[in-house]
């Protein structure tokens, strides 16, 4: 099943996807997906992101692949829903998307073995983990000013049940900018797969329902400009749409 969260007529609703692609409220009302205000499909707990988790991307950034997962954390301020607008600051010269498979944790677990790790997973969604490279500094890199900006991590629209994605390690990832494909890859190329990441994180910390792991991005980064519409899609999961806006549009009162 595909589940989402929307704001509609003054209330927050848990919704599902109807067969014709429309959004179904619990009471049976059907809405067009472009007509509702999308919220992230889950209220985020701890949000982890992975750097350099695809060998081709590591090479693209001129890094050798890491020996242990390069994980960093994000705050709730950076998470926004489907069809949100994300700000590109006026002084940025290189802002790029990152299409990622997001793993949503459904159980509490500590010291979970790789063999049992997938039992921890509630489902999957899609993230676009924007980065503004102008603000990169070499302290706890990638630093929060690059990766934890308000509204810079769109997530959604749907949370797809784990069992509806039989092989999460063989999904095609695609990014389109204004309809033109700019990034393609497959989750098969992850350096640390989902089970390994869960085993690693729970080796020292407890994961809880609502925690989210953004599993990294393959090569194919490109600068995005105000007005660009970015679609990040993971095969069999969902397609997440986001629009870049400039400061004047973002802060327009």
């Amino acid at each position: 099943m595909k589940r989402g969260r929307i704001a509609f007529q003054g209330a927050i609703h848990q919704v599902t996807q109807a067969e014709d692609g429309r959004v179904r409220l619990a009471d049976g009302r059907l809405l067009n997906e472009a007509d509702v205000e999308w919220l992230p499909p889950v209220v985020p707990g701890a949000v982890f992101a992975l750097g350099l988790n695809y060998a081709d991307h590591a090479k693209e950034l001129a890094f050798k692949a890491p020996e242990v997962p390069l994980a960093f954390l994000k705050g709730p301020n950076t998470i926004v829903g489907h069809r949100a607008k994300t700000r590109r600051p006026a002084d940025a010269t290189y802002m790029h998307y990152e299409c990622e498979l997001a793993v949503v944790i459904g159980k509490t677990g500590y010291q979970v073995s790789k063999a049992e790790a997938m039992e921890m997973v509630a489902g999957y969604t899609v993230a676009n983990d924007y980065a503004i490279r102008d603000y990169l500094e070499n302290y706890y890199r990638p630093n929060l000013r690059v990766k934890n900006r308000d509204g810079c991590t769109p997530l959604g629209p749907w949370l797809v049940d784990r069992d509806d994605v039989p092989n999460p390690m063989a999904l095609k990832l695609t990014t389109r900018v204004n309809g033109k494909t700019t990034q393609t890859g497959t989750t098969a190329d992850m350096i640390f797969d989902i089970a390994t990441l869960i085993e690693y994180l729970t080796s020292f910390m407890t994961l809880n329902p609502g925690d989210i792991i953004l599993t990294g991005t393959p090569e194919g980064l490109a600068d995005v400009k105000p007005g660009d519409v970015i679609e990040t899609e993971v095969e069999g999961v969902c397609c997440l749409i986001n629009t870049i806006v400039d400061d004047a549009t973002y802060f327009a009162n």
Partner: protein
Amino acid sequence: MIKQHVSGTVYGVVLNDHASLRKIGSETLEAAPYKGAPKAPAMYIKPANTRVACGGTISLPAGATNVEVGATIGLVIGRAAARLNRDNALDAVAGIVLAGDLSLPHDSYYRPAIREKCFDGALPLSSVKPLVDLANLQLRTEFDGLVVEQRSLADLVRDPAQLLVDVSEFMTLAEGDVLLVGVSYQAPQAAAGSQVRISAEGVGSLNFSIAGAQK
């Protein structure tokens, strides 16, 4: 009214005091991998699993025998706060907490230190106290009754107001979030089995124990 205990996201910062910058040294900061002293606050996140109330006992991850105890003050945010300026920054602060920001020793600040800083229990916090003048606040850390560190917030590079300005420039702090004002570089290390006390005059104290080493 503010909640008695912290409920939001906790953000911290390293290299925010002159003593720490001197200790790591400008030569180190100018060389690879840092290639320059930090410009923006050098931040990290302590997620919810790290929080422990006063009086708690913290078990270190398997294999760890020592832990750095970064004594600091957390600014507890009282309302959604973004794009603050120096004049209004402290208006967003509803109170403060004493914090023992625990880290497994790590030599390098180059990469995010999730295992080192985010293990279960890595952030003992006091209950929320009223905001006091922090400009010359003295923080004292004791291990088993012996003073191991005394530091003054007068030594901060970015004082609390400036830290709030520079952080809220790019991220909104929510009600209940906490911004730690900085820990010492290579803070004193407590061994497994230690009793730790962090205190500040006019604020109170935070007590916790480090459990014996796991196999």
